[in-house]
């Protein structure tokens, strides 16, 4: 399953190195169309993310990156297209069921519930799980992973710093042991040092647990530094999907699609 490969000069470089078609594709999106009201934002998006890889979706403001994530997790209803998670159709699944299918979405602004404590926010991420013992184990693992959170268990969400909030949002998603993690702008408003730490953590999770990540970022450099696959969106379409290293290193591609 390849990324969108339109014939013609606009997208001659679409390729699928390191991501051969087959059973290893965790997320397959075909012809996804979505928008708000009558205004379409996504126009026939095709996308494939292999299991155990990190895909970074980059592009200008208004390219449809956030809308893509919202359409994938069902927060907005797609008008057309297919979303397959491990081969199962996701479209039409109620939002609250997606987490049970293995998809976690950390939304724009992180979605930390300010009125709840750190511990309550984290526990909420595992409440849906039947296996209570493993949910408790996952909670302990998150506290081990994010040591600042362990020190602030009883603090309310609104008492945390931006970096701590991002850790909390990530940790809360991880408590549900997702197969696919959708992350919307994790670097927003964070110091470069904190961003680097979070990106390194994503790699670590991918390598250790086989987590698959679909990351939306404005911060193209740090996103491509961590990702296996780079997906460039423009005006609601995927204009190129290529190995992140190729997008990073190919000067022509960078100039054409990323503007730097």
């Amino acid at each position, binding site marked *: 399953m390849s990324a969108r490969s339109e014939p013609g000069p606009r997208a001659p470089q679409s390729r699928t190195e390191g991501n051969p078609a087959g059973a290893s594709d965790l997320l397959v999106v075909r012809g996804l169309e979505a928008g708000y009201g009558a205004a379409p934002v996504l126009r026939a998006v095709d996308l494939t993310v292999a299991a155990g890889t990190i895909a970074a979706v980059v592009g200008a403001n208004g390219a449809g990156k956030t809308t893509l994530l919202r359409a994938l997790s069902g927060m907005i209803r797609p008008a057309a297209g297919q979303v397959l998670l491990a081969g199962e159709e996701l479209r039409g699944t109620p939002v609250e069921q997606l987490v049970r299918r293995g998809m976690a979405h950390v*939304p724009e602004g992180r979605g930390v519930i300010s009125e709840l404590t750190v511990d*309550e926010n984290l526990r909420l991420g595992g409440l849906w799980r039947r296996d209570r013992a493993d949910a408790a184990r996952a909670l302990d693992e998150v506290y081990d992973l994010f040591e600042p959170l362990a020190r602030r268990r009883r603090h309310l*969400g609104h008492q945390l710093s931006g970096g701590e909030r991002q850790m909390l949002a990530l940790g809360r998603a991880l408590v549900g042991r997702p197969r696919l993690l959708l992350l919307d702008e994790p670097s927003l408003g964070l110091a470069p040092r904190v961003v680097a730490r979070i990106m390194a953590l994503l790699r670590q999770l991918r390598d250790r647990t086989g987590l698959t990540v679909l990351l939306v970022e404005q911060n193209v450099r740090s996103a491509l530094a961590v990702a296996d696959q780079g997906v460039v969106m423009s005006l609601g379409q995927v204009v190129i999907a290529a190995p992140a290293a190729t997008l990073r290193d190919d000067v022509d591609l960078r100039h054409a699609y990323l503007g730097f």
Partner: protein
Amino acid sequence: MDRFVFLTIDGLSRGAVYAAFALALVLIWRAARVVNFAQGAMAVAAAYVAYTVATATGSYWLGFLVAIGAGLLLGALVDRVVMRHVDHASPLNPVIVALGLVLLIQAVLGMVYGNEFRPAEAPFSRSALTVAGVAVLSPYDLFVFAAIGVVVSGLAWMFARTPVGLRMRAAAFAPEVSRLLGVNVGGMLTLGWALASGVGALAAMLVLPTELGLHPHAMDLVFVSAFTGAVVGGLDSPPGAVVGGLVVGLLLSYVSGYAGSDLTPLAVLVLLLAVLLVRPGGLFAPVAARRV
């Protein structure tokens, strides 16, 4: 002094009922951002169910339990059948619909039971026990305190300590995020309506025997007092609702005891006005969370 003690205890007893009723209003406000103006009428409807059951079976307690059950059910029904379908774009919409519901419920009750007072039975004696020559508590007052104490602490425990309580709070504060975390937000909302309406039914069962009895309009004034209590405490704060309800109960008792019962409705409105002017968020308004 004797009189002061009596008025204080009487005020706390009434205040406990207002507290429960105010708490029910706060539960729905927090979950759905709706002030449920139909709560009084819904509670009266549950009390009429109790009356029917108690008359048919001769058992007060069976009627009592059925009333709480009817309250829970009616709350869920009002959410699912009516309120869920109201456009919340303007805050006035649910208010108007709730007022319409009041008219409907009161009209139906009037058609079925007649617009006359029916006796509301008290399960315990209402004559005060005398301690050292001072009339203090009646067994019925003790029952009221115990019933409301159990319900309020039970709700507090449920919200603070149980998974379903955590889900309900999360769904109220951040519905969209909660859905992403697998919370059935619609179900939590219905549960909130059911619980609030059940508490309202309990309050009606407790307060009606101390008043003129059962009547389609019997809870109208209780609603006004409890609403004032909820606003005094800040509509968003459950502990505030309890304290606010007790404050209103005490105020009404002192005013009617020392200045005459004609002045009590005025006193409630003066208190409401004072709170809205001085501290519109209520006495227990939380410090607004800073969203970054």
